[in-house]
């Protein structure tokens, strides 16, 4: 089964680290991706730029409207994700617990949903 591990971070998750610490975190994160690759768990992983760099897009009555960032009142934001293949939820949890950022932020683990074919009742 495939699971999406979403890395949630707080406003000072990164700033709490000095430069050397941040570099080490990056190294560890990339090393963990390689490790998951070697174990056949890895499908994809990306980090995201900060929430201030994003735009929310909506279409209402045929008109595009845009607003800043996702939810300005919440401090937690999505910092990145790893898409993995795991045998079951508990294996996915073990893999998520190994993500270096789990020690600083929090990882949300969600199984992917396969959309049933809408043409078949």
């Amino acid at each position, binding site marked *: *089964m495939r699971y999406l591990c979403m890395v949630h971070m707080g406003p000072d998750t990164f700033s709490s680290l000095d430069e050397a610490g941040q570099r*080490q975190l990056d*190294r*560890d994160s990339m*090393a963990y991706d390689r*490790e998951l690759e*070697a*174990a*056949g768990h890895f499908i994809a992983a990306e980090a995201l730029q900060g929430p201030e760099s994003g735009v929310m897009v909506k279409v209402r009555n045929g008109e595009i409207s845009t607003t800043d960032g996702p939810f300005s009142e919440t401090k937690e934001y999505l910092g990145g994700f790893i898409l993995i293949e795991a*045998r*079951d*939820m*508990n*294996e996915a*949890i*073990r893999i998520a*617990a190994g993500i270096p950022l789990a020690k600083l932020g929090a990882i949300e683990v969600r*199984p992917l949903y396969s959309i049933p074919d809408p043409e078949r009742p």
Partner: protein
Amino acid sequence: MTDLEAVWRAESGRVLATLIRLLGDFDRAEEALHDAFLAASEQWPKTGAPANPRAWLVSAGRFKAIDRIRRRARFGEIAREIAATEEEAWMPEDAEPIADDALRLIFTCCHPEIPADARIALTLREVAGLTTEEIAAAFLARTPAIAQRIVRGKNRIRELALPYEVPGSEQLAERLDAVLHVIYLIFNEGYSASHGEAAIRGELCAEAIRLCRQLVDLRPEPDALGLLALLLLQDARRAARVGPSGDIVLLAEQDRSLWDRAQIAEGTALVRRAFAHQPVAAYTIEAAIAAVHCAAGSANETDWTEIAALYDLLLRADPSPVVELNRAVAIAMRDGPEAGLRLIEALLERGELGRFRYAHSARADLLRRLGRSAEARAAYEAALQFTEQEAERRFIEGRIRGLAN
């Protein structure tokens, strides 16, 4: 690939158990187990499966774990020297999988210090190799709830540093009881599902029997033999217990040609073996009762005198209101409905079984046989009030309709 799935079901628990002993850590061992099966999926199609898959997987898992530690050391997560010492520590002479490893894992997963609901989930996942999702589906629970139970169970093992060991003889009886109880609960959840649509979830029954067999192979204690006999004899009647439309068929009305004769023979032989040891365990007595039922060619030929005597024995070994209820039913069969009814009504007056559906339906049944229809109807309705299981509801409703006049 299906081959490897079969190997997983048969061996993952035992390989994991040995890896836990070698690596000293649940999560590392699981990681290594995964790596070992990954290696097998790449190599076996080319070279053919090894003669001893379990030993192959243990050795591959151990090798991969060492490899992983080396890689982590390279990336600076663990200092090199630590890796080097651990590596030496991980190369013990006795890396061969031994039967006791599997036994240790069962005892650890069913440790009394682990919350009861986590014991069942841990045993099914770590020993039987079921996935979190399969366990959740079998228990009609949400996957995140089961997943967290398993995580909490493992944390508990770590916090308390529960030893991976087979308890010494002074503790063995009590600890074995806990293991047998977990297996019994798994079977019961499959056999008489307490809620939901399907009356029987066969895969849980099969899993419980497999676990119990494994336990008996490792340690043929009389109580374990008794439980295995009980599970085999109950399960042998599974096909006859549910009608074509998913409705429950009572023992007396079952098509006995659907019973699994080979399984009955095996169970009956086990009862005899277990009965030779004193004191006779409650599971063994229950198995003996099941064996008497299975021996009867038709419901009318059932030896109720023998069954009532076994219930007397069971009441001494494991006194409970439910056993008293079953004994009352057996006595009703031996001496007639009035005798049974007196016992059940006395039992209901004591209050402990007031919310127990079978107490009301058993009373209703005896009233029906005595032709006291109005009272029978009221008793069936009382039973309905405490029944959440669909097939059982339909069964009782059918009985009420049968009373009509």
